Structures are given as structure tokens and as C-alpha cells.
């Protein structure tokens, strides 16, 4: 009860304060990794202990598997993914000319399936989609995030920024209320991180599985008692894009492990 009251007071206090806004400067940007306990960091660092690597291996197998009416595999066009997909995930979400909008890595994989393989798109958070995404993202490990360079993305980054700053839900909190203004503090026992999307898809110990950035953002929206956007909604992609551009210059660490 005391805890609940404390949380309520904290929420009310936060809700009454104006948002400080303003991006975190590059030298102060911190990956969620640096907020974790050393034990959890070790799980991520050890490639044979990081459960995310199970999906990467699956993704590698899928990369070479023929599918769809065209009976083509990813490798038939893109060759060896461990070479050709280097640094690709670090610049996603990227602009898709045909759609005239940004698409994230999961959507890109599904578009490639539809357009070039003649295959059914995978559903969001399905093991196959996560596996292929994890395989592609792993090729960007250690690469600096470079999303948002394309000038055509500018209006979408701005939309994402607006969503990030916009208070919503019954708790009337914006993403920025926690992840820009209070990232050095705690919410109950958990560290409030900066919300830097450096390691997606991540293996989250709480989920006991791999999950996408969209799943993570939907979880946050649920947490502030807002109505989460549907998977694949333009708002989620714009938020992803803003988050990635906000993390520019940080090193990718997919598949990361988070508590």
C-alpha cells in the first residue's frame, strides 16, 4: 500500500512537471546494457549463453531456405547474408519508395517475401520472422546506428518525435517523461533506461523469448495505460524510426539480452 501510494505520488509529481525535452547528447547516451546487472551482461556477452543466438542460427537456416511461388531463398538474391547484410540493420527503419513511407526490418523482410519470393508474409512476433530479423540484425553487431540519414525520412522522424513527446494514457505520461527526463532514476526496483534501441530484436528474460522493438514499445504503452498501436501501425514505425535516429552513433548489439 505504501509502495502504491509512493508510486502514485511519483506519477502525479511527474505528470505535473513540464517535459524538459531535448535529446540526450552523444557522449551521455547509454545502452540498456549499462543499466543491467553484471550477471545479465555476461549472458549477453557469451555467444553460447545468449539465448538470442538460437534465433540467429534459425535465421541463418531460413536465409538459405527456398520459399514462395518463385522458389527462391534470400541467399539466391543476397548471397552470403553474413557478408551482404553487414550494417544493414543499423540504418533501419528505412524509406520504401513504393510505399512512400518508412519500413522497419521486420516489414522489409515481409515485403521482400511478397515482392520477390511470392511468399506469404510472416505474422509479427512469429518465430520465423524473429529468426530472420535476428540473423540480419546480428550482422550489424558493433556498427554505429545510422538510421534517418535519408532526407525523405525527415517528416516521419518528426512525427515520431511528436509521438515520443506526447503525453497519453490514463497515467498521462509521454515516452520522454521517463526516457529523456528521468533515465538516471528507478521505477520501483527497475532502472529507468534511456530507451535506446541498440539491441533489437532482444531476448527479454521477462518474456522468456526474443521480441521486436514494436513489442517493447507496445509494452511501454500498456504500462502507461495507453492503448497500444497495432503491430505494423505507422505510428509504431515512426516511433521506431525516431528512437533509432535518437540513438545515432551508438553501437548495435543485437541480439541483446534485457531483464
Amino acid at each position, binding site marked *: 500500500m505504501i509502495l502504491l501510494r509512493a508510486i502514485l505520488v511519483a506519477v502525479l509529481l511527474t505528470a505535473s512537471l513540464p517535459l524538459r525535452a531535448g535529446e540526450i547528447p552523444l557522449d551521455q547516451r547509454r545502452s540498456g546494457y549499462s543499466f543491467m546487472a553484471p550477471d545479465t551482461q555476461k549472458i549477453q556477452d557469451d*555467444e553460447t*549463453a545468449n*539465448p538470442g543466438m*538460437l534465433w540467429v542460427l*534459425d535465421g541463418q*537456416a531460413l536465409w538459405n531456405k527456398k520459399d514462395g511461388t518463385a522458389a527462391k531463398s534470400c541467399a539466391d538474391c543476397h548471397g552470403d547474408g553474413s557478408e551482404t547484410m553487414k550494417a544493414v540493420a543499423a540504418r533501419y527503419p528505412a524509406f520504401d519508395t513504393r510505399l512512400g513511407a518508412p519500413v522497419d526490418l521486420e516489414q522489409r523482410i515481409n515485403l521482400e517475401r511478397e515482392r520477390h519470393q511470392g511468399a506469404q508474409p510472416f505474422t509479427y512476433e512469429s518465430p520465423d520472422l524473429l529468426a530472420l530479423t535476428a540473423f540480419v540484425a546480428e550482422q550489424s553487431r558493433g556498427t554505429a546506428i545510422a538510421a534517418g540519414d535519408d532526407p525523405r525520412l525527415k517528416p516521419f522522424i518528426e512525427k515520431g518525435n511528436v509521438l515520443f513527446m506526447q503525453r497519453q494514457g490514463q497515467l498521462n505520461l509521454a515516452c520522454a517523461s521517463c526516457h529523456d527526463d528521468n533515465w538516471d532514476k528507478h521505477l520501483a526496483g527497475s532502472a529507468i533506461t534511456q530507451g535506446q534501441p541498440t539491441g533489437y530484436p532482444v531476448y527479454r528474460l521477462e518474456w*522468456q*523469448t526474443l521480441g521486436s522493438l514494436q513489442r517493447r514499445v507496445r509494452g511501454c504503452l500498456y504500462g502507461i495505460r495507453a492503448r497500444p498501436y497495432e503491430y505494423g501501425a505507422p505510428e509504431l514505425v515512426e516511433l521506431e524510426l525516431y528512437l533509432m535516429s535518437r540513438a545515432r552513433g551508438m553501437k548495435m548489439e543485437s541480439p541483446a539480452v534485457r531483464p
Partner: protein
Amino acid sequence: MASTLINVQPKAKRGDVIEIKALTSHIMETGFRRTAAGDLVPRNIITTFTCRYNGTEIFRADLFPAIAANPFISFFTVATESGKFDFEWTGDLGFTQTASAKIIVE
């Protein structure tokens, strides 16, 4: 599905204590959860893990419903001779999974 990750050092000196790490993918459904309709989700866990070193069992573990998904098991043994480690996971609903790793002992 690539479902195991084994970490055994490829070479060791005779008599060395070596660490063996084995990760496998499994949902480890406890059998206590219910669906939205109220039906019990049947238990689906790994029940036994064994490791054999050149045919001799050197490690065995019984697993229970409170163990996390994708269980990671690490243990130690003494490197006595070159050869092979065979890993086997068995569980509910006829689940079996095997993997192996080689070691050279000098």
C-alpha cells in the same frame, strides 16, 4: 530448428578441470497456466538432461516446472581423454534433443 548451443573448449590438457555449457530452446510450459477461456495449458517441460563423455555418464539433471524457458546448464568435469561429449534432453510430449561436441586432450 537449430535448437542447441554447446560450449566446450576444443583442446585441454590432461587433468584440466573444464567447464561445459549447454543451452537449448524449449518453452518450458509449467502446466499451471490457463488460457483466456480457462483451460489448463498442458505441462510441456524438459524433464531430464544427461551428458556422456565417451559413453560414460558424467552429468545428469532432473528439471522441474519452475525452470525458465530455454534452459542453460553449465557444469564442470575433468578432461581425461580425447573424444566426444554427447548431450541429451528429454521431456514431456515425447521431446528429445541431442547434440555433441568434440575435445582433444593432450
